[in-house]
C-alpha cells in the first residue's frame, strides 16, 4: 500500500551524522557540568546555610515543575528582553545543564541521605575536615548507590535535547525534520531518526555503566 523509500533519507547521511554528533556533544557537556551542579546543590540542600538551602530548594522546585521546552524558550527568546543574548547552542547547553542539575541534585541528595551515620562519625574521629568527609567518605558510595538513576536521568536529558532543534540548534531531530521537510519522506526520516536515538541511548548507558566505577566513584 505505502511505498517506503529510504534512499532519499539515507542519501542525507552527512546531515544525520552531524546531527547525531551535535546531540552527543550537547549531552557530553551538559552531563559533565550538570552532574557537578547536581552534587553541589545536593550538598547545599543538606549542609548549606539556611539562605542557601532556600535558594537551591527554589531552583530545584522551579525546574522540576516546569516543562523543558519552556525553560529553553525562556533562555533563548526571553532573556534577550533583559539584554542577555545567547547563541542557540549556548542556550541549549545552558538549558540542559540547568535542567539536569535540578534532577541530579535530588537523586544525589537521596544517595547522601542514606549514608550510615557511623561511617561519618568514623571519618570525623579520624580528624578529617568537613570537606574531606564529604568528598572522600560520603560522596563516592552515595554516587555508587544512585548511579543507575543518574545514568537514566542523563539519557532522559539527551533525548530531551530533541526540542533544541526548535531554536535552530542543528541536533539530530533538527536534521530529521529538515530532511523530511525537503523530501516529504516523514515516515522514513523519523524512523531512521528513532533508530539513531535508540542506538545512542543504549550505547550511552553502557558507556556510563562502564565509566562510573572506574572514573567517578572508584571501585
Amino acid at each position: 500500500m505505502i511505498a517506503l523509500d529510504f534512499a532519499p533519507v539515507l542519501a542525507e547521511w552527512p546531515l544525520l551524522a552531524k546531527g547525531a554528533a551535535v546531540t552527543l556533544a550537547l549531552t557530553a557537556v551538559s552531563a559533565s557540568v550538570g552532574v557537578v551542579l547536581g552534587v553541589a546543590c545536593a550538598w547545599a540542600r543538606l549542609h548549606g546555610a539556611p539562605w542557601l538551602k532556600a535558594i537551591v530548594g527554589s531552583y530545584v522546585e522551579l525546574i522540576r515543575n516546569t516543562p523543558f521546552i519552556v525553560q529553553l524558550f525562556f533562555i533563548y527568546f526571553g532573556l534577550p528582553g533583559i539584554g542577555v543574548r545567547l547563541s542557540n547552542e549556548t542556550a541549549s547547553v545552558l538549558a540542559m545543564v540547568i535542567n539536569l542539575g535540578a534532577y541530579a541534585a535530588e537523586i544525589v541528595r537521596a544517595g547522601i541521605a542514606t549514608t550510615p551515620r557511623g561511617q561519618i562519625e568514623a571519618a570525623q574521629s579520624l580528624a578529617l575536615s568537613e570537606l574531606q568527609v564529604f568528598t572522600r567518605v560520603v560522596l563516592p558510595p552515595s554516587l555508587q548507590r544512585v548511579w543507575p538513576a543518574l545514568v537514566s536521568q542523563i539519557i532522559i536529558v539527551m533525548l530531551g535535547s530533541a526540542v533544541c532543534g526548535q531554536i535552530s540548534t542543528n541536533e539530530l531531530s533538527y536534521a530529521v525534520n529538515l530532511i523530511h521537510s525537503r523530501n516529504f519522506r516523514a515516515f522514513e526520516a523519523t524512523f531512521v531518526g528513532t533508530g539513531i536515538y535508540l542506538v545512542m541511548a543504549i550505547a550511552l548507558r553502557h558507556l556510563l555503566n562502564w565509566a562510573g566505577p572506574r572514573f567517578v566513584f572508584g571501585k
Partner: protein
Amino acid sequence: MIATTHRRALLRATAALCAALAVPAFAQSALDDILAKKVITVAIPTDSAPYGYVGTDLQPQGLDVDVANLIGAKLGVKVELVPVTSANRIPYLQTRKADLVISTLGKNPEREKVIDFTIAYSPFFQAIFGPKSLMVKTPADLAGKTVGVTRGAMEDQEVGKIAPPGVDIKRFEDMNGTVSAYAAGQVQLMGVGASVAGNFVAKNPQVSTEFKLLLKDSPNYIGVAKGEDKLRLKVNEIIAAAKASGELNKLALKWLGRPLGELPS
C-alpha cells in the same frame, strides 16, 4: 484467502464512500445564483495584515477585503465575508461555502488541479526583512549575517538559492518562531512572506524593520470553484477594468505602500 477477500470488500466499500463524498458536479450557475440572491460570499483572511486583518473596531479590513467589496459593488450585490485560514480556504471553495476566495492565494499546479483562478489582482512576495541600521542591498551583503527562516517554507528554499557562502541560515519550526527570533535579536534578518512582515511591523513599530531583498514574487489570484467559468470570466472582466481605471493601483498604494506593478494575467 479470507483476508484478501476482506481487503477487497473493504477497498470496494472505501471507493464507494469516496465517490459518495466527492463534491457533486454543480452546474455552472454560481454567477446566476449570486445575481438572483443579490449576495456574494467571499472568503478572506483575518490573520494576514495588510491583506486581511481585524481592525480595532473588530471589522475585517485590508487589501483583500477592499477587493471583495469592489467586486461586490461592480456586480451590484451585497458582500458576505467569511474568515478563512491558509489551510481551509481551498476546501471552502470545493464545498461551495464561498463563491470566491480572495485570501493571498498564490497559483501553483497542485492547486490548479482542484480549483480555477482568475487573473492576478495584487502583488505578493517573500522577502528578506531587517533593521534599517543593517546595510543589505545585494545577496552578497548577506555573507556573515544570520537569517531566520521557517523550515520547509518557500523562503527556506529561496534563501538557499541566493545566499552566498558564509550566510548563517537558522531554521525555525513555524512563522512564530522565526518572527520571535528576529524580534529577540537572535537573528539579524528574517526571510518571510510580505503579510507576516507587515503584521510584525504593524505590531512592533519600535523595531525599525524594512524590506531588504526580494526572494520570490508570487502574485495573488482569486480562487473560483472548478468549472465556474461564467463567474470566473465576469470577475476577470471586473479586475481588468479596475486595473485599467487605476482603482486597484490605488488600493495597492493604500495597503501595501507600493504600486500594483506588472501582474500576470
